[in-house]
């Protein structure tokens, strides 16, 4: 309760700031949407020459694209501060988070809120709605079930991003600069926009078992196509995210014990 109250103060402040800089915010979002729509445009060009890509229709690929944006955007919105951890540690700025009688990780996460992420979330919702409305032969009840199921997947899938970032960022307690490691692993999420099946076996295995971004969009689309069961995707998502998050949190806790601060 106390934690939520603290968070709401920070959030209110950021929203105020957002209104102050609404022009910058809108321009930023517009640029992002334009950039992404180019990607979609190219997909549509490709699909003028082919009907199916590895068994997926244009609408299904768009759906996948959309689904991949949403959890990424939610993570971006709430947990963006993790990107700054390597620098914060190197400059000894983590001190301040350790001086307060609240959980240090929580404190670290709530001080930044990234409204740029609304671009990803909005794009994701538009593409997903487009994709899902073009699936033939669905009754109203099917839509509702699908949407609820997808929302659940997205919500849990967010923590694949967060957990991965937290694990790799926490390496900065031992490494001088863990930023490249963060970047390389995080950027693999770009593969999540497309069916993993079109990639070489190595990437397929990587995306399913090691850094399982395939669960963000690919498997949920298979579920909608009726090729995967709800329970198995949910189970695997829960397993992966709890594994990632608990590893991330325990690395953070170990790292805190190993934290060296700076000279003065």
């Amino acid at each position, binding site marked *: 309760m106390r934690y939520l109250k*603290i968070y709401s*103060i920070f959030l209110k402040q950021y929203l105020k700031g957002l209104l102050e800089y609404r022009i910058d915010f809108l321009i930023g979002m517009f640029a992002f949407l334009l950039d992404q729509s180019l990607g979609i445009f190219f997909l549509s060009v490709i699909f003028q020459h082919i009907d199916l890509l590895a068994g997926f229709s244009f609408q299904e690929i768009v759906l996948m694209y959309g689904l991949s944006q949403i959890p990424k955007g939610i993570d971006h919105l709430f947990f963006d501060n993790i990107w700054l951890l390597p620098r914060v540690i190197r400059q000894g700025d983590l001190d301040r988070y350790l001086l307060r009688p609240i959980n240090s990780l929580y404190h670290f996460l709530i001080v930044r809120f990234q409204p740029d992420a609304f671009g990803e979330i909005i794009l994701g919702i538009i593409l997903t709605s487009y994709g899902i409305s073009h699936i033939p032969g669905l009754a109203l009840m099917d839509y509702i079930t699908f949407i609820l199921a997808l929302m659940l997947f997205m919500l849990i899938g967010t923590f694949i991003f967060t957990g991965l970032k937290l694990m790799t960022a926490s390496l900065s307690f031992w490494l001088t600069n863990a930023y490249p490691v963060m970047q390389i692993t995080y950027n693999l999420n770009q593969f999540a926009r497309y069916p993993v099946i079109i990639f070489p076996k190595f990437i397929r295995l990587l995306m399913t078992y090691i850094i399982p971004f395939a669960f963000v969009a690919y498997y949920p689309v298979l579920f909608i196509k009726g090729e995967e069961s709800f329970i198995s995707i949910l189970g695997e998502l829960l397993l992966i995210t709890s594994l990632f998050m608990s590893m991330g949190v325990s690395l953070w806790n170990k790292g805190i014990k190993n*934290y*060296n601060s700076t000279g003065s």
Partner: protein
Amino acid sequence: MMEMIKVNNLRKEFITYEKQPGLKGMIKSFFNAKKIIKTAVNDVSFHINEGEIVGYIGPNGAGKSTTIKMLTGILTPTSGEIFVNGLIPYKSRTINAKNIGVVFGQRSQLWWDLPLNESFTVLKEIYQVNDADFKERMDFFNQIFGLQEFIKQPVRQLSLGQRMKADIAASLLHNPKIIFFDEPTIGLDVIAKEKIRQTIKEINKKFKTTIILTTHDLSDIEELCNRIILIDKGKLIYDGDVDNIKERYGSKKQVKFTLKTEEDFFKVDVINEFSHVDPKINIKFEDNTLSVIFNKQLLGIKDITAYILNKLDVVDINIEEVSLESIIKEIYKDGLI
């Protein structure tokens, strides 16, 4: 009397790896890095009672901040024991955090983008301060620091003096049992310094707050502390009365004469002239400047300047108190008092 802080045989080592210059060195040290162990705090022990104001001092790099960071739970000691109000800080960091207030003069602990009043609202929640106490304390801070003048501004826009006042007020909001002030007056003007010293005194008197103060400003210590702990190169070298130190070193003065030529130096013999009055009189000569360090209770500035001015052409004269830094050096050189 209640013991607030107990530190026994505290030690903190930092491990770094030797880096060799050049590409070849980089590759070499990548595969076979040489470990360098730096001992920042070396076998330090002290006990501090409730309500004491203790100056924790030493030159740059002596291990002051490292000790403070261990007492606050930021750093985990390599070995030794620490108890702060009965708690082991690095093990019970968040509980300990409720009992302590911390001000690092070099670095604000407040949230950069939050307006000051919002920062206090957050602190109120974090420390669970009730409404009545919150109001009373905010009124008190307004009274002494005039916070209302800049309370709507984000912390990043505050001037150094305003920021320091804000940081000190923030550290006091939950009425902690112990406060660590690390350079609380650094970079402040005389009036602001005085205000901050007054506040520290008042808090100590009113709430019996235990205060640990690190500073380079000897006058902070003189005005506030009855006890000092000196460390140098990680080792404790003195723990005791301020009066004791003052008697021995605080009465030293330094007069610097900038001479016209280097040869002039050999035309005077200060030590021979005055050593029968002040047996510990000392001189230094560098960059054409002759420095005379003497005890002002034994010798007058007038005597020394008169002697030198009579004999030599002097370009400039400068009279200084002996700095804390050089006192510490002297103590370190001569051993304990």
